[in-house]
């Protein structure tokens, strides 16, 4: 009797396994190499410009004549459209490119994304990527998105303006060691009189990057940007120090407030020669080369050489309801994560690859950034439950800081109090 049960069980097991395997096999053979498919890729507008998405799609179609690729631009950088449309079952995108961790985490929380777990194999296991930005997408056992480009925060400067102001030489521009140094740099490079200067020494980004700069600066000053559970450490004493720097440099007229209505004012100013130093993603220096040539340089933020940088990624993700997941995987493997694709974005616009092997062969512009990124103390982006609200609070406080009498310490306290009312646990 026991034998019979055992045999039945074994048979059942074999049977179910074969069904399972068969089912899986069928899925593989059904997909993108043979069946006629249409894959709709949607990317944020700037990605279409800074990466050869359209050309890759064309190439992918040539390689796989059975597949039709459709590329469109997502006109909504806040991803609201995805959140609202996809949760109503209104899915007509198969692959979305672009979105920060905190935004994509919301989509994942709402259970709108297909996990990428089975993507990470062969040449594309997780350790081939910059691990932090991949781990950031983990929710339960699932990895809900795939980073396809990475950025690191640092200072980008106009060497010509610095040398003119006596800050180092062309071959060896001076590096700020402390926030006071940076203030002095800003003061020396500022030109013009009156409430609006002709050239500003420094530009803090009061929108879009205001949070990332803050956490990077706290980390670089030797502070603890995050608590051990991954939530932000809004009580770090360094926050007040950073705030005090922002307030001083802006209120004294050496830092511009232009980024409040124009988040790109810093990088546009760097290109136009009206801003000497900005604190944003390192890619801005490469981007500015089109206007400044070799005078667009990278500088470490005070303490960055010791304490590392701050890295964040832009993600690709697949909405639930798509029927061509495997073709999307193919497109990612063959095109988006290819060397050529990465190289295009890197050399022209400074966007760093997320796949470590794609760093090979890039120009020497990136060696320093790579060093900062490799520093074990480097912190990364975040995905907290009410992260986007916190970001807005940080921007608002920073803007208030430079337009009212509030002191740096008061602002830091106010921010800590506001943050304490938010749910800032890591999205799990």
């Amino acid at each position, binding site marked *: 009797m026991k034998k019979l049960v055992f045999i039945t069980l074994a048979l059942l097991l074999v049977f179910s396994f074969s069904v399972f395997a068969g089912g899986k096999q069928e899925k593989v053979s059904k997909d993108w190499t043979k069946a006629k498919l249409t894959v709709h890729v949607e990317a944020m*507008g700037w990605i*279409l*410009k800074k990466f050869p998405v359209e050309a890759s799609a064309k190439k992918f179609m040539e390689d796989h004549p059975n597949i039709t690729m459709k590329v469109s*631009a997502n006109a909504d950088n806040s991803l*609201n*459209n995805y959140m609202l449309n996809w949760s*109503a079952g209104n899915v007509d995108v198969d692959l979305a490119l672009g979105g920060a961790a905190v935004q994509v985490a919301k989509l994942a929380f709402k259970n709108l994304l297909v996990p990428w777990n089975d993507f990470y194999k062969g040449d594309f296991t997780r350790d081939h990527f910059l691990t932090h930005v991949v781990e950031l997408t983990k929710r339960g056992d699932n990895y809900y998105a795939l980073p396809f480009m990475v950025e690191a925060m640092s200072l980008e400067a106009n060497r010509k303006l610095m040398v003119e102001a006596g800050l180092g030489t062309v071959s060896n521009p001076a590096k700020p060691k402390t926030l006071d140094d940076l203030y002095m740099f800003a003061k020396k490079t500022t030109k013009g009189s009156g409430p609006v200067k002709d050239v500003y020494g420094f530009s803090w980004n009061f929108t879009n990057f205001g949070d990332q700069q803050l956490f990077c600066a706290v980390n670089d000053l030797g502070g603890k940007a995050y608590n051990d559970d991954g939530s932000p450490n809004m009580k770090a004493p360094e926050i007040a120090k950073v705030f005090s720097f922002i307030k001083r440099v802006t209120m004294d007229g050496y830092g511009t407030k232009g980024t409040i209505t124009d988040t*790109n004012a810093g*990088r546009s100013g760097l290109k136009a020669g009206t801003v000497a130093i900005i604190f944003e993603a390192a890619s801005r220096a490469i981007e500015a080369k089109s206007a400044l040539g070799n005078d667009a340089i990278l500088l470490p933020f005070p303490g960055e050489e010791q304490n590392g940088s701050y890295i964040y990624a832009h993600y690709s993700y697949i909405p639930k309801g798509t029927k061509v997941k495997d073709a999307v995987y193919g497109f990612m493997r063959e095109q988006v994560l290819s060397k050529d694709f990465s190289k295009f974005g890197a050399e022209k616009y400074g966007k760093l690859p997320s796949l470590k092997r794609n760093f090979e062969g890039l120009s020497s512009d990136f060696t320093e950034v790579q060093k900062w990124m490799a520093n074990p103390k480097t912190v990364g982006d975040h995905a907290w439950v009410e992260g986007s609200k916190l970001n807005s609070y940080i921007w608002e406080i920073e803007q208030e800081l430079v337009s009212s009498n509030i002191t740096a310490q008061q602002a830091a306290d106010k921010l800590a109090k506001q943050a304490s009312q938010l749910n800032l646990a890591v999205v799990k």
Partner: protein
Amino acid sequence: MVRRNKINTFFLGFFIFLILILFMVPIFQTIFTSLKTDKEIYKVPVSIIPHNLTFIHYKYVFTNLASDFFSFFRNSVVVTSVSVLLILSLGSLASFGLARINFFGKNFIIFFVSFIVSIPLIITVIPIFMFETTFRITNTNIGLILPYTAVYMPIPLFIMYGTFLKIPTELEESALIDGCSRFMIYRKIFLPLAAGGLVAAGIITFLNCWGEFLFALILTTRRSATTLSIGIMKINQQEQAWALGPMSAIMVLSTIIPFTLYMIFQRYFIQGLMEGSLKG
């Protein structure tokens, strides 16, 4: 005495003229910017009149931005014209009924429509968005036409109501006695007589829909589906810097149609407004 008056008039005219010039600065500035080279746009001091005219930005709009620009333009034209037609036809029917027929519930409807005028539109947006996603008509022209038609119905309705009220009753009565149906009276007698009010209502609706912001912002998220008034905001997102030249060119190009329409119908517009709006 008379001479002093004339001098006064002259100075007042001159003063008005100066103010008008100041008033026109934003428009001239935009037109001039669209005709400057990129280098000149960002050059300080800013040149008031362009040194060397160039059509490079217009060319850019019609080549690189062509697909965006034409889809914005097409959507604006389709959405606006269909909404205007719907509002004028449905609205004039309704206002005829309200103005010329005594029926049960009439006062309720008048109250109801004036109530709608007074609520802030944003409280209708959330459910309309949910409704549209359920029926999958976000990012389509219909998805904009439906809310526009509802939202911009009340004011033209009141304008036409005012115009219909003014038309003397004799015409209607004699037609009724002749055995005309109400619809015939509406079509054959009232519509031609109320042409001024209709045009005024049409222009107001046109301008409202052409420049509509809130619904277009929320209900269209794809470039191919959005209208000019929202599309202009999307241009710079691709460039990651204010694309001043192309944006100015688009502004100039997209104002040509409403401006021409306004110039053609200007007389009716002012007349119609005077007849209708004060009654609302």
